[in-house]
């Protein structure tokens, strides 16, 4: 009896000892590993493309264009990060972006002042998010199904607004895209600034507010979060509202980018956003991930797209490469989860 006791005590001693040292360092930063990996891949892509194109790739113009061309996707990915960190998913964002974009173009074409049209667009996205959130939280619908319903609803609404594209003449909207604040060869448009602001605000909310921490707690264990007395219901609805709002904002940015609203915009873009978030190191099962990671994910995605355009290769290669990267990242994430579970 005594022998058993000493043995088991010895073992627990050893475990505590080990966790303080190397392993402790690794576990503390393990959540960041996939994000570092994404950053490494981004740099690798840059270096590879630079070598392949003999110094024509890393130019201020190309890098600036990367942000400009992917601003809408970055905004979608920011909202998606909130949802995925809680362990949910939002499939509606591509359609919501199309709906709010075409709605905005139509309202402006009918003479609504821009100061009213923009809030209407943003509120429209947030309301669809609210509906999805309420379905998920209070009607216990799977996020996949609830947001699939949102996808169809928003796409249908987009076609109700208009069956064809509507050109935007409003100078304030066009200003968002056409203005270039430049330093040397570098430039940034107001749409790019909006996207970077979205990242900054989201990172602030995620890491420095109680709501943000509740998002992580829900992703870690929803039942624990509830038993800890956190505001789980409110927060879960809120992440879908945030995602919907971001989709509305993306609709505005995309309309400015393309100079028109188009009801067929963003078909499949929700999957691009999810791919970018996952490549950026956010765990699809929730609880781990960073908004900054999602930004890197979007840049990886955008860089692959640029490289393929430069090479003049088939666009289908885009999907193959993104698919392969996704697979790689999901395997890496499984390995990290398995490691932390094995230790617990």
């Amino acid at each position: 009896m005594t022998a058993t006791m000493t043995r088991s005590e010895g073992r627990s001693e050893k475990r505590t000892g080990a966790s303080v040292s190397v392993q402790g360092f690794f576990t503390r930063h393990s959540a960041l590993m996939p994000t570092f990996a994404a950053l490494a891949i981004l740099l690798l892509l840059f270096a590879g493309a630079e070598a392949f194109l003999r110094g024509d790739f890393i130019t201020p113009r190309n890098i600036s264009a990367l942000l400009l061309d992917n601003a809408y996707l970055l905004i979608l990915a920011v909202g998606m990060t909130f949802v995925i960190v809680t362990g949910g998913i939002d499939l509606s964002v591509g359609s919501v972006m199309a709906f709010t974009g075409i709605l905005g173009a139509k309202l402006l074409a009918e003479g609504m002042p821009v100061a009213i049209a923009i809030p209407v667009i943003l509120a429209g996205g947030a309301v669809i998010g609210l509906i999805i959130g309420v379905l998920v939280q209070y009607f216990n619908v799977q996020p996949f199904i609830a947001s699939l319903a949102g996808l169809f609803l928003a796409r249908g609404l987009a076609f109700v607004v208009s069956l064809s594209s509507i050109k935007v003449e409003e100078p304030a909207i066009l200003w968002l895209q056409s203005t270039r604040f430049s330093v040397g060869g570098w430039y940034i448009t107001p749409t790019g600034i909006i996207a970077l602001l979205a990242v900054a605000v989201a990172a602030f909310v995620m890491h420095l507010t109680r709501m943000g921490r509740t998002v992580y707690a829900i992703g870690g264990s929803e039942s624990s979060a509830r038993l800890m007395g956190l505001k789980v219901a409110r927060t879960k609805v809120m992440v879908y509202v945030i995602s919907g709002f971001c989709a509305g904002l993306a609709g505005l940015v995309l309309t400015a980018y393309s100079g028109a609203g188009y009801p067929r915009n963003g078909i499949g873009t929700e999957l691009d956003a999810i791919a970018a978030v996952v490549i950026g190191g956010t765990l699809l099962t929730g609880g781990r991930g960073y908004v900054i990671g999602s930004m890197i994910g979007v840049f990886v995605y955008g860089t692959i797209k640029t490289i393929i355009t430069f090479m003049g290769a088939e666009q289908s290669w885009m999907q193959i490469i993104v698919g392969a990267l996704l697979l790689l990242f999901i395997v890496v994430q499984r390995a990290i989860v398995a490691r932390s579970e094995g230790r617990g």
Partner: protein
Amino acid sequence: MTADNDVPPIVEMRGITIRFPGVLALDGVDFTLRPGEVHSLMGENGAGKSTLIKALTGVYSIDSGTIVVGGERRAFATAADAQEAGISTVYQEVNLCENLTVGENVMLGHEPRVGGVIDWRATHEAATHHLDSLGLRIDPRSRLSSHSIAIQQLVAISRAMVLESKVLVLDEPTSSLDRGEVERLFDVIRGLRDKGVAILFVSHFLEQVYEISDRITVLRNGALVGEHPIAELPRDALVTKMIGRELDDLATLSSSAHRDIDRTGTPVVKASGLGKRGILEPADLEVYPGEVVGLAGLLGSGRTELVRLLYGADRADEGSMEIHGQHAKVHSPRHAIDHRIAFSSENRREEGLVPDLTVAENIVLGMQARQGWVRRLGKAESDAVVHGWIEALGVRPANPHALVGNLSGGNQQKVLLARWLATAPELLVLDEPTRGIDVGAKADIQRKVSELSADGLAVVFISSELEEVLRLAQRIAVMRDRRKIGELESADVDIDGLIDYIANEGEGSAA
């Protein structure tokens, strides 16, 4: 010992009744908790302990009765309400977030803020302070998942301290801890008690209950049995109160227990030092052909844990097994089936039967698994087997095409038994095969087990009903606190002797 009856109670629950569909979960239960005492809530599974705790902590709403906390009548709607009233709960499963840091888990929802922005430095300082007060010197910035379950359990208690709780509910906090870790937890509990915190403690470990408690409330079948100061309730009295004594209609069943067993040959299965850290201390067990070995002990004593290791449902981390004298590795149920070991789980609904399949399909499943999925069983063959077992066990309705989900508990149990028996096992492990089923079905199952063992089948039999164990088993292994404390020949003991053994035996050796 600090508690006495003069202190006004912090929690008074009177006449608490909770109904679930078809079940009276709590029937007019009274419970009183005083500041500065450790009060244990005892009872077998289904006695209503968890339900009472959930009524107090706002997880369940009560159908009638009153809850008074700190002199005020309360009805908590959520766990958050109860926490605000000063009642914190630490559950058996650590309810924290493994993906966050220790400090964050302690402070979550209570982080110090400056203008709505979390002040992380102050948060970690506060967390360090609360961890320190429990003697935990760990880095609040370390990830929770990097610590052992014991530390996590203590972190959960630190969290309760942040809320400055007046009442701390500990629901089976020790079930995954080893002895050293339990001691550490107990030091903390004593410290809190001395500060005037009222502690509600639930554990299946008798030794721990006697070590830490000032007072015990016993529940049975949703009703209050009594409240006693620890000094006035010896262990055997407690066990008797928990188990109760059911008058047994089955006494007429011819006893197989006193059949002589030839233990000179090789045992069907021989486990030596089989154990798993935090689950079961190493135990030996031998079962000979034709023998029924009963496992007796309270729920949570390690009975189920031992047989799960035998069957490979959980993987042992020490010890070895021999089957028919040959060294054998049983690391998964698949291996066990290959060695002709059959295990009928206590959760027949979750781990045994497929309710949406018919009786016949359920019975054939086990045989089919043994045969491999490629070679289909012939219809004639499977019909013969199914009819044979329905007949032999008296499954009602005797219709092979009835859906198992629609059968009564007793008949479901018979189907489960039939499924395993159809695989022609050499060792049959039955975990609570008669719980919650009617007397007739009980008698059928007991009779069949007795017949089969007389024909040479080796059986390990677990039951909370000691009469049943004494009647069926020739030899009884007694478990307590995740440890096998001894073996008895059932011919040598009666029920009082067995209760006494479960409650008191081997005290000297326990640290």
